[in-house]
């Protein structure tokens, strides 16, 4: 298949997934910001919750170039609607649709219609519209659009190379985003010893789990109180949790082993190594190493896999 077509499909996958995960990240922030804690005890080593999505996505500089105050509305505007923020939901849906327009021949017409109608709706929404709908309701809509596109893709698309590149984009983005969402807990709270395991801690972990649709799964698997160690296990190591790093790497590694040929053995090796670290990893080792440090290392490695995919198969970004 054309490298440019593969490129567009890969970026459709990434952008739709990014829109969904930005919605998830804003959702967890929104939930956390409603917790009473920081109103009662201001200044207790709390990071301002609205800084979290900016910091974890590396968007703080861009944000402060446009906004003075770290207010909820400003962050929401920047992360949802701002055309100058390439990771905003608006920009992601637009980019996905533009790529879709360029390669509509490589997908089914239902897929293109779905991307197109998501964009046509997004285009009519301004901040007043988001508020009128309700923040959570709007973020839910974004997630549902992503679910719908994924459903149409899985349900209608030929299982060919085009499908592989689209899914590769989806899962590389998801692996990256899950790691970032999990790491938000590190930014939210530098806990004093007394807080660990307390009510606030519980709610923070709970809302984080909810934001990755992991709350019910956690309950089913562990039938127990929420502990950071188990959340980490669930979202990093468990292969049966579809948004976990391990599950993402399973898919990525499978796809790459199929796509790679003699020109791309290094890519296959990088992906295989990262996959093995998750496949054979132990929760205790991660916790000893430090979850934050572990996630930072993972983001570097998964980023390197993404770059190598671009270099080997796609049209390199200008």
């Amino acid at each position, binding site marked *: 298949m054309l490298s440019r077509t593969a490129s567009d499909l890969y970026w459709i996958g990434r952008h739709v997934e990014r829109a969904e995960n930005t919605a998830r990240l804003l959702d967890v922030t929104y939930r956390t910001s409603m917790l009473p804690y920081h109103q009662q005890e201001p200044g207790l080593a709390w990071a301002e919750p609205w800084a979290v999505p900016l910091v974890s996505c590396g968007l703080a500089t861009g944000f402060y170039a446009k906004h003075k105050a770290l207010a909820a509305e400003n962050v929401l505007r920047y992360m949802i609607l701002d055309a100058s923020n390439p990771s905003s939901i608006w920009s992601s849906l637009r980019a996905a649709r533009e790529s879709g327009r360029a390669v509509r021949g490589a997908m089914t017409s239902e897929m293109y*219609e779905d991307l197109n109608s998501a964009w046509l709706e997004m285009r009519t929404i301004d901040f007043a519209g988001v508020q009128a709908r309700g923040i959570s309701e709007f973020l839910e809509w974004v997630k549902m659009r992503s679910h719908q596109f994924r459903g149409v893709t899985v349900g209608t698309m030929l299982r060919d190379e085009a499908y592989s590149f689209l899914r590769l984009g989806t899962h590389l983005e998801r692996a990256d985003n899950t790691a970032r969402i999990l790491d938000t807990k590190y930014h939210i709270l530098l806990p004093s010893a007394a807080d660990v395991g307390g009510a606030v801690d519980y709610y923070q972990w709970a809302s984080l789990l909810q934001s990755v649709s992991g709350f019910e799964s956690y309950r089913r698997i562990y039938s127990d109180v929420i502990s950071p160690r188990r959340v980490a296990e669930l979202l990093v190591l468990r292969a049966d949790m579809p948004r976990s790093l391990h599950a993402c790497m399973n898919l990525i590694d499978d796809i790459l082993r199929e796509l790679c040929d003699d020109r791309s053995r290094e890519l296959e090796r990088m992906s295989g190594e990262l996959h093995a670290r998750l496949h054979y990893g132990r929760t205790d080792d991660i916790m000893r190493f430090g979850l934050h440090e572990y996630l930072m290392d993972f983001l570097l490695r998964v980023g390197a896999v993404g770059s190598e995919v671009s270099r080997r198969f796609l049209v390199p970004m200008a």
Partner: protein
Amino acid sequence: MPRTFYDEMHGSDGAVRPHYQAVADWLAATPPVRIAQKREEADRAFHRLGITFAVTGEESGTERLIPFDLVPRIIAAAEWATLERGLVQRVRALNAFLDDIYHDQRILEGGPVPAERILGNTQYRAEMRGVEVPGRIYAHVAGVDVVRAGEGEFYVLEDNLRVPSGVSYMLENRKMMMRLLPELFAALSVRPVQHYPDVLLDNLRGVSPERDDPTVAVMTPGPWNSAYFEHTFLAQQMGVELVEGQDLFVRDDNVYMKTTKGPERVHVIYRRVDDDFLDPRAFRPDSMLGVPGLFQAYRAGRVTLANAIGTGVADDKSIYPYVPEMIRFYLAEDPILHNVPTFQCYKPAERAHVLERLDQLVVKETHGAGGYGMLVGPASTQAERDAFRARIQADPDKYIAQPTLALSTCPTFVEAGVAPRHVDLRPYVLSGKSVNVVPGGLTRVALRQGSLVVNSSQGGGTKDTWVLSD
């Protein structure tokens, strides 16, 4: 002076023509509210499907829907039979003409067309002299613009032989109509058009320089081209890659696509890029859309381009008046379709005639297209006529003039209900081992009352075109 127009639906006695009866009944029986619903449904579907076109000169990325009219344009079987024979004849002659002027030039030896009109034409590509093209086919796809006037006779307005567009609307309009008005299809036997992409692909594979499983690609200038939707549509329908210039490269006179598995040879390119932009080494050096070395590969016979390079000389408006002569010269047949009488401003006597009657004639630029750069005399202002007079006098070679034709009308939904509006027709003529016309075409309709300009860039709309089998 009131003019009479050929009415596609009603005879001169006001009675509904037999082939329109089912539609007339449907119009009479369906409440306006129901029709309005259907129209909204069509608009929504076209938007969602992304069947839009970009308008030249507007902010890049502006996409518009071409207004779609629900009342079909119907052509009776016998009428179509004549039209089809005429189109096939015309395109065969035009292909023979192109083959001739790039090879033996028999027509120049005392033939009916003055040599300087051809060799001096800016659309004549001297580089193509002596280049062999498979099957001697130059215009693989022709979109011949036809109108009906007088008592319903067909006149050819233009032979579009370069990169004619619009066929995707023919196909999508049909799909839409079958979805919206299935009851009418049940009542009438409408000949299908959906096999167009198959015929096209078969023809393209047939002109490959290599017999064995040739690779075909559609080449587009890119997403900002006004016909981009159509390019993606045709590539998808034929199941071939849609490439841009940047996706191709030439090595040792072979053309390759850049793919995820490395270079892959391409044998036939259905290109929707103008000659000038195909190869910066051979033509415009500033072209960012083309492929360096493509022309050399083409000359070497390693890749086939459809349409061929240099077809523009045959559909130029200054050559148009000679097409009936070409038909006699190459085929020894009488032309079946009429040409519109054309005054050539480079001839002093005809120029004088034109300048005296600017308020009655339509003046066109010989290289113009899309309804741009033309003067519709009866609808013009004195200032516009003065401006054209000056332009014609300064550069008479660039202009031709024709009488304003009494274009036929077809019932059309407008604000006030259903009213007659002027229409034209662009059938698509495909040349391969044989010359075929898919029974149908794109009917364009001038939505403004009295307007004769049907171009979508000038506010025209489209209709589905039904050719009946009996």
